[in-house]
């Protein structure tokens, strides 16, 4: 059941996620998935994952996957609404909090905030990778190839200094050749 697309709820959804995106917007991907795919059905599972893959394949900050999600929901207006939503609160907060935080680096509250949030941020990053892999692993025909590709990517990223763009392109090539 697809809900009609409206830009205001798109904007508001990303607006609420903005201040939660500690460690980067990528940590709120599971929440975006819940909203855009599970609840509103504005995107399918594979459209959602393809949007993120596309943004990762292109140059620039990873945050632009939000623009692609918005674009795939509602065109350029959707891209503008989602980017404005995800960036407004966090940029305003960053500008106002930066000088204060810089001056109070040793303050107990600042350190407790950082120390308390770091484990959560890492858990969220790994959960995000896990969730992004799910749609590929669900399809029997592609499961083994995908698993191998993910494992290879992990090893290459952790053990070599190979430019990430070559890995993304190689993944695309292997996919196009029907190997994964």
């Amino acid at each position, binding site marked *: 059941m697809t809900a009609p697309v409206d830009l205001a709820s798109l904007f508001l959804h990303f607006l609420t996620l903005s201040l939660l995106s*500690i460690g980067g917007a990528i940590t709120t991907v599971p929440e975006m998935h819940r909203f855009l795919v599970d609840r509103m059905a504005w995107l399918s599972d594979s459209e959602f994952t393809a949007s993120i893959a596309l943004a990762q394949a292109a140059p620039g900050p990873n945050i632009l996957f939000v623009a692609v999600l918005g674009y795939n929901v509602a065109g350029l207006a959707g891209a503008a609404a989602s980017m404005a939503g995800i960036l407004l609160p*966090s940029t305003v907060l960053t500008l106002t909090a930066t000088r204060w935080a810089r001056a109070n680096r040793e303050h107990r509250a600042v350190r407790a905030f950082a*120390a308390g949030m770091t484990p*959560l941020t*890492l*858990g969220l990053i790994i959960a995000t990778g896990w969730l992004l892999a799910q749609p590929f692993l669900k399809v029997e025909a592609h499961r083994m190839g995908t698993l191998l590709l993910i494992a*290879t990517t992990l090893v290459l990223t952790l053990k070599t200094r190979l430019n*990430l763009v070559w890995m993304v392109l190689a993944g695309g090539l292997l996919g196009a050749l029907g190997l994964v």
Partner: protein
Amino acid sequence: MNRPASLLALFLAFTRLALQGFGGVLAVAQRELVERLGWLSKEEFVEALAIAQVLPGPNVVNLSMMIGDRFFGLRGAIAALAGMLAAPAVIVLGLAALYGQLSRHPIAVDALRGMGAVSAGLILATGIKLLPALKQSPLGRPLAIGLAGLAFVLIGLLRWPLLGVLALLGGMGMALAWWKLK
């Protein structure tokens, strides 16, 4: 230390930096801002990044604003932010539009599946690479790893909503850290 000559120089430096960053900008940011341009010392860069990471929002976007702000105030922050986002946004939306037309071709779908699997792997690898940071956690390593594992289970396996997990585990983590830092 050098400094950007103008708002335009700031904008162009961040555009150049962003366009080199496939699969993340952070490594490129360090190389360009610290090593090539010399706008920040290594120590200043790490310090700015630590603050950027504590704040919500994309780290590199926060970082660009903080650096712009340092040299030219609010106008600098906006110029750096625009440099970071404008050109890459045009490229990525162009690709998205193209993909919309190509998506009926099975070969494009297959290519995107391969790229998607790689990007899932890249994100997993990023998380794993950063795990050693927990060694220095004032929480102590077992507690920090426990919290990270719990976050993975609640979000990745049980699909709890983020807000609840942030409130529960973030609150727990901060309270424990506050207590341990006494």
